[in-house]
């Protein structure tokens, strides 16, 4: 099975996709930093950034519906954090600030991850001497996420094909076993991967 939930549009062709990964990463990080540091009293900044991001989105030829879906998927987390702000005095203003800033940052990252293959991002991080352990872990995570999802899907199907009675309590119980199994299998796979790395000279 093939999975592309992580960076589905990262391999299509557009002016944005053709930009070097390093440039895109630098711009994205700069936007996130600037957005976090700019006070909400400068609404011009947020307006300009919003328009810029929309232009990038259009130029990237990614389906707007897909981008919107991604954003909606992540928005509950933002609202969860922002919601807490409503409890404090003058909360409305803080709420708006958190929502606007986070949404702009998330949109930036969604655009980055769908215009740049993750492998390219990792290799840029390696080039700028990011800590080795971190880049290796990131690279392995990207590599094995799809394997893990595959495994979970297979186990889910095997379970579903032997589930005859719908029983919520039993469902939760089996879900627990599936997660436990997945953990055990991942540990075993990690051991085999380590053996494979060692046998090609890893120390």
């Amino acid at each position, binding site marked *: 099975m*093939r*999975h592309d939930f992580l960076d589905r549009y990262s391999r299509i062709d557009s002016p944005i996709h053709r930009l070097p990964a390093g440039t895109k990463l630098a711009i994205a990080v700069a936007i996130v930093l600037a957005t976090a540091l700019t006070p909400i009293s400068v609404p011009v900044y947020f307006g300009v950034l919003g328009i810029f991001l929309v232009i990038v989105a259009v130029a990237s030829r990614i389906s707007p519906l897909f981008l919107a879906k991604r954003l909606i998927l992540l928005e509950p987390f933002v609202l969860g954090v922002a919601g807490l702000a409503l409890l404090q005095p003058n909360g409305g203003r803080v709420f708006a600030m958190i929502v606007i800033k986070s949404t702009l940052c998330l949109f930036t990252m969604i655009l980055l991850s769908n215009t740049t*293959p*993750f*492998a390219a991002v*990792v*290799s840029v991080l390696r080039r700028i001497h990011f800590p080795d352990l971190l880049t290796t872990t990131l*690279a*392995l995570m*990207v*590599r*094995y996420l*799809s*394997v893990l999802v595959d495994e979970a899907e297979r186990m889910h199907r095997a379970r579903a094909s032997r589930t005859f009675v719908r029983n919520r309590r039993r469902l939760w119980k089996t879900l627990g076993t599936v997660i436990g199994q997945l953990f055990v299998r991942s540990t075993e*796979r990690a051991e*085999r*991967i380590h*053996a*494979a*790395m*060692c*046998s*090609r*000279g*890893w*120390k």
Partner: protein
Amino acid sequence: MNRDRESGERGAKKAQAIEIKDLRFRYTDGVDALRGISFSVNEGDCVGLVGPNGAGKSTLLLHLNGILPERLDAASSVFVFGHPVSEQNLTEIRRRVGLLFQDANDQLFCPTVFEDVAFGPEQFGLDPAEVAGRVHTALAQVGLSGFEKRAPHHLSRGERRRVCLAGVLACDPRVLALDEPTSDLDPRGKRELKALLRQIPATKIVATHDLELVVELCPRTILLDRGELIADGSTAQLLNDESLMLAHGLERPHILQHRHPH
């Protein structure tokens, strides 16, 4: 390396690539996986390693380049070109013995094909230009030139298997230890892999249930069962012995049954 190979050919007797003397191994859960295995393989030979599930084939292969046992001691039972597999010459042993794992997903751990094939040569400290050269040669050898930038999870199983092989070949090993190389391949994938393996001059040890592969590729076969060496001899003779095959969870391959002497 080439010098060694030439001197081996000049000598009357071929050099011993692998020598195993009374190898025993017990897993931490108490299972005796290997109970005193001894055999040797000459340089350039191709040996099939057959036996039922749990016979110890994979465990044996993991010993060939020191992945097992976890703690290596001086009194090793495995010798590679005369050198014992020990902590001191582990790097050299791993450079000489390439291991192809059963599950391609375990072996392809890098985000791109290029990085994966380059992994071995990089570990052995080659400079980047030489690494790139090795990667291109290895990928060309397995017929996957142009796959450098692809991600492993976007490849078919056959392609993945071949990338794994390229990753091993890029280390320029003199011994190839293959664990179930044809297990999840379709007939075409199998055929291509067989043709590919035949072209590789290295010494090969193939652990497999695919007896047709053994018949076509390996003149010699070793039969293991429950950690013991049951038989060691010519493939034609061994695999044709129906009672022996059945007694150890195998069967006479069809390819031998239908072979008529005309």
